[in-house]
């Protein structure tokens, strides 16, 4: 079978192949052996990541957070088989493409997606799923009903768009507010660096996060602010 696999891309830690599994378009995420690190460390990290990813995908389903469906886990070959969204765009690419088409309507669409992201992250946190790597590379937009709209306008038609969260390798289950604060801080930093032309993006997402539910929100905000202050206070000598 491996001879027929087509490589789609090399991600942050895995190689992604596409194939057809039981008649469905499938993506194989293979956490190949990293020769730069000690083999014992590599084995333990890889096992843990595969376990985390599979577990969180399942948990998201119960929580009502859309993720690729999980088809198969193969620890031996370090692979996860999952639903492949053939027609999708990462939120990162969506925002980068916005630049060329800036008009007010498109900005409203971005606000709609920011709200969606905030609500979705909150939903994960309510279910104690800490994503661990919240960046716009790990969020996909897909169509609810497949359309024939041209690629450059399709993703602006927000009433027909759904948000999918992917890449749960660094995720874990934890009830503490500290981890939620760190998760938000990681997201904020990724947005500031990647999408510096939209400086208000995080605050919009955070507002949606806060208003989605009130439970524990004060504690989470204050933890997030602690983590953030720690970063600002460091003097960085040398």
């Amino acid at each position, binding site marked *: 079978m491996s001879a027929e696999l087509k490589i789609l891309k*090399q*991600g*942050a*830690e895995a190689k992604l192949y596409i194939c057809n599994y039981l008649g469905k378009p499938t993506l194989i995420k293979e956490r*190949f052996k*990293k*020769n*730069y*690190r*000690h083999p*014992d*460390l590599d084995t*333990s*990290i890889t096992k843990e990541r595969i376990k985390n990813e599979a577990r969180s995908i399942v948990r998201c389903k119960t929580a009502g957070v859309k993720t690729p469906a999980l088809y198969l886990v193969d620890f031996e070959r370090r692979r996860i088989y999952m639903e492949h969204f053939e027609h999708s765009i990462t939120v*990162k690419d969506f925002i980068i493409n916005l630049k060329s088409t800036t008009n007010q309507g498109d900005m409203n669409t971005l606000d709609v997606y920011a709200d969606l992201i905030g609500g979705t992250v909150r939903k994960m946190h309510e279910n104690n799923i800490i994503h*661990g*790597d*919240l*960046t716009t*590379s790990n969020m996909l937009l897909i169509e609810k009903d497949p359309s024939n709209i041209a690629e450059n306008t399709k993703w602006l038609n927000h009433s027909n768009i759904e948000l999918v969260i992917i890449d749960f390798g*660094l995720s874990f289950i934890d009830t503490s507010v500290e981890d939620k604060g*760190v998760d938000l801080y*990681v997201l904020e*930093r*990724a947005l*500031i*660096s*990647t999408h*510096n*032309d939209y400086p208000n993006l995080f605050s919009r997402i955070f507002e949606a996060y806060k208003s989605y539910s009130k439970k524990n929100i004060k504690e989470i905000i204050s933890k997030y602010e602690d*983590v953030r202050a*720690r*970063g*600002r*206070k*460091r*003097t*960085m*000598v*040398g």
Partner: protein
Amino acid sequence: MVIAIGFEGSANKLGIGIVKDGEILSNCRRTYITPPGEGFLPRETAEHHQQNIHEVLQEALDQSGITPQEIDVVCYTKGPGMGAPLTVCAIVARTCALLWNKPILGVNHCIGHIEMGRLITKANNPTVLYVSGGNTQIIAYSRQRYRIFGETLDIAVGNCLDRFARVLKLSNAPSPGYNIEQMAKKGKKYLHLPYCVKGMDVSLSGILSYMEDRIDELLKDYTPEDLCYSLQETVFAMLVEITERAMAHCASDEVLIVGGVGCNERLQEMMGVMCSERGANIFATDERFCIDNGVMIAHAGALAHAAGTRMPLEHATVTQRYRTDDVLVTWRDD
């Protein structure tokens, strides 16, 4: 053509260097070395710089073969760093600027490292891993700023290594990190240590306190060499991982390692293996340029000066906190 002199003293190295359009004319340095088990403190470090700065300045001028009259701009480290040592260099730089009647320019230390690395290695638009005693950052350029994609959530990697060297009472000469590196080469037995990566960020305080808390027990089963080896393997794996994550996120195929920890050959080797596994290129420099030096401040200042950046004398102060992304990169327009 720009000739620039640079004064660096943000931590325990005092460096003065002179550069002429990217050609290094001199690069002189003195390091304040503390006894084993001790770190450097601001007051003593400032005293060290004060006692050596005139001699280093003379040496840098002599080696360069130029006279102060030929200098176009006097550059110094504005921050980040320790207040008192920074101030020593700022005062001498201001004095020289007034004495020689030259413009002065405060330079961000981190930007100095990045631009020096780009100059030496000719890396064009790399993802930068900046690792030193006080810094651990993953940086990439976008729209006139060096943006921080990842960083440590608590202590810097150099600080983590230095503090572990102190636990083992290793010598601080030439640097604690260098001695850890040499010990690690003889380590054989790998100890599993806490591994903590959060997206493109890392946390290093957990691994240090884990080792500090049980050092006596650990030394029963592992040699100091094994512990140095295990520490390096673990923290460097974390750094390589977040660098790779940032590269995937930014679609980058170049890595540049800068900062004092960047001259660690094991780190360079691990990064090289990661790069070859994704068809990317690695760039690194040796201790002359990785470790804090004056020429990097001169070079970054010269770039800014040539692009028209100016600083009135009354703004030529120091600041302990000065983030890499605070600086407007006037000399790049890509």
